């Protein structure tokens, strides 16, 4: 083969290389622009509401589409409270699952049980919604909530949390469903970070006569603290933005009650319910503003989660 054709071929291959490389870089840039685009698009949509209501939008609890009065407080309140309930239930459970899978479970069962827990995360939100509406809510209404009211209703202050009739639908039910949905996410992160503990540390503790619970409490948990917090934040990020399941069971009322049994709403439930019915420009913009607030909150929580997990990764690697 002549020298010329070979160098021509080489040149062509170099061009292919450059093209391929540019294509992958362009795709990566697209992913980057996507996040920026989301922020800008939501910001643009939300601007009329923010400029019309000012910062008061965040603390105003009115929500009246007829008189065009909108405030974000009930939705923000509902979002935070339901997520808090979810975390209070899901974090201890997830810790238990992770301890079971890493310390207790016979190795043969580890994969099947781990997979079943992860399948819980694969079930779509809407399925939890329909289940919550037709199965969980009636059960809570007829069985659990009357007991809660009986036990706590008479106690001052705590009683306020369980005031009112057992409706089945409400903040507590939404928190419950959310707990079920984020449990697998937190549990699988915790299991993964527990596995980063060097076997030598664990074995030395056992060698000194520590029990399994002492090894977990004094060795595994301190070593993986940042990773555990990262997993919890990841779950929190999910809980804050969960839409369909919450929309089914929260009752959708723009109200703030001290009682956990009362109906409420969250940002995502408000969007799911009202967006396609919003007529006035200010109404649509207020919904965009809610979306923007949700995006900012989840972004901060998820960024913190990534940062924590990244720190653990570096610690484990170095």
């Amino acid at each position, binding site marked *: 083969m002549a020298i010329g054709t070979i160098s021509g071929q080489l040149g062509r291959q170099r061009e292919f290389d450059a093209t391929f490389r540019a294509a992958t870089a362009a795709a990566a840039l697209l992913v*980057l622009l996507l996040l920026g685009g989301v922020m800008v698009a939501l910001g643009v949509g939300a601007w009329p509401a923010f400029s019309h209501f000012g910062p008061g939008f965040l603390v105003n609890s009115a929500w009246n589409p007829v008189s065009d009065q909108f405030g974000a407080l009930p939705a923000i309140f509902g979002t935070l409270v339901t997520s808090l309930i979810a975390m209070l239930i899901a974090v201890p*459970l997830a810790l*238990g*699952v992770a301890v079971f899978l890493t310390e207790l479970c016979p190795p043969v069962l580890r994969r099947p049980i781990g997979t079943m827990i992860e399948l819980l995360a694969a079930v779509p*939100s809407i399925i939890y919604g329909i*289940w919550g509406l037709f199965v969980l809510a009636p059960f809570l209404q007829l069985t659990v909530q009357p007991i809660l009211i009986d036990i706590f209703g008479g106690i001052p202050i705590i009683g306020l949390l369980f005031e009112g009739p057992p409706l089945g639908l409400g903040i507590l039910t939404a928190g419950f469903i959310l707990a079920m949905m984020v449990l697998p996410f937190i549990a699988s992160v915790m299991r993964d970070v527990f596995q980063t503990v060097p076997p030598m540390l664990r074995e030395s503790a056992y060698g000194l006569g520590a029990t399994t619970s*002492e090894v977990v409490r004094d060795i595994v948990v301190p070593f993986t603290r940042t990773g555990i917090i990262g997993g919890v934040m990841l779950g929190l990020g999910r809980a804050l933005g969960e839409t369909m399941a919450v929309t089914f069971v929260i009752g959708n009322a723009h109200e703030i009650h001290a009682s956990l049994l009362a109906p409420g709403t969250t940002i995502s439930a408000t969007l799911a319910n009202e967006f396609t019915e919003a007529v006035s420009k200010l109404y649509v913009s207020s919904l965009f503003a809610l979306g923007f607030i949700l995006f900012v909150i989840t972004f901060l929580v998820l960024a913190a989660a990534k940062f924590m997990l990244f720190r653990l990764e570096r610690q484990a690697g170095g």
Partner: protein
Amino acid sequence: MSRYARRRVANRIYLALSFAATAVGLIFLVLVLYALLRNGVPALSGTLFTAATPPPGSAGGLANAIYGSVVMTVVATLVGTPVGILTGTFLAEFGRGSPFAAVVRFVNDILLSAPSIIIGLFVYQIVVVPMGHFSAWAGSIALALIVIPVVVRTTENMLALVPNSLREAASALGTPQWRVIMQVIYRAAIQGMLTGVMLAVARIAGETAPLLFTALNNQFWTANMNAPMANLPVVIFQFALSPYNDWQVLAWGGAMLITVTILALNILARLLAGWSNQTP
């Protein structure tokens, strides 16, 4: 009680609690699946797959919704997968250690867990508003945006598992880099990448929130991608919250169909991944 006995008891209690926590998780899964089967099986009939969604009070099925879900899922996967694979390739092959890649990786992880309803709002703003109407295209785009981060993540992880000696051996033979990646690296990682795509499909098959403001819904048969299109999740949402019993039955039937499909995809994907881990 001696100190030793006390520690042993504390340990027993602790372990029993962690066992109970796992049992609670598994019971949730069983309860949900049981309710789906109990309420979904009665909805199974010939017309479920052949008739379109009915008006309240008359017989019908979910054919138009099933069709819409399948079409939008396929289009979203076809659009999202190449972008995801290219980005994952960039992160694993070209951008190792570069600050730009670190930022993309971080942003991708945020997108992976970002609320899907936000994606719906975004696509509404950039596609539905300029077009002036809801459409199946908009729904497909919203779902594609959810596919991308899942595929990016798995592609990068799978490519990172390919041993460097393969890359070096191929390069030493004078192979240009694009050929090394396309014909050596991809071939070594194909099962894992396929797993990622299947997980992405399973994820979007049940997504509801991003479709609410993009594809909307449609009572009738349509194959027009430029018009609102029925899809299983939104139909379930509408029918389950309706007061009509026959609509609720259909909602349960749709819910069972979606869940069975998604769980099957997940289990298949895991089997595929496990199988590829064992073959060196």
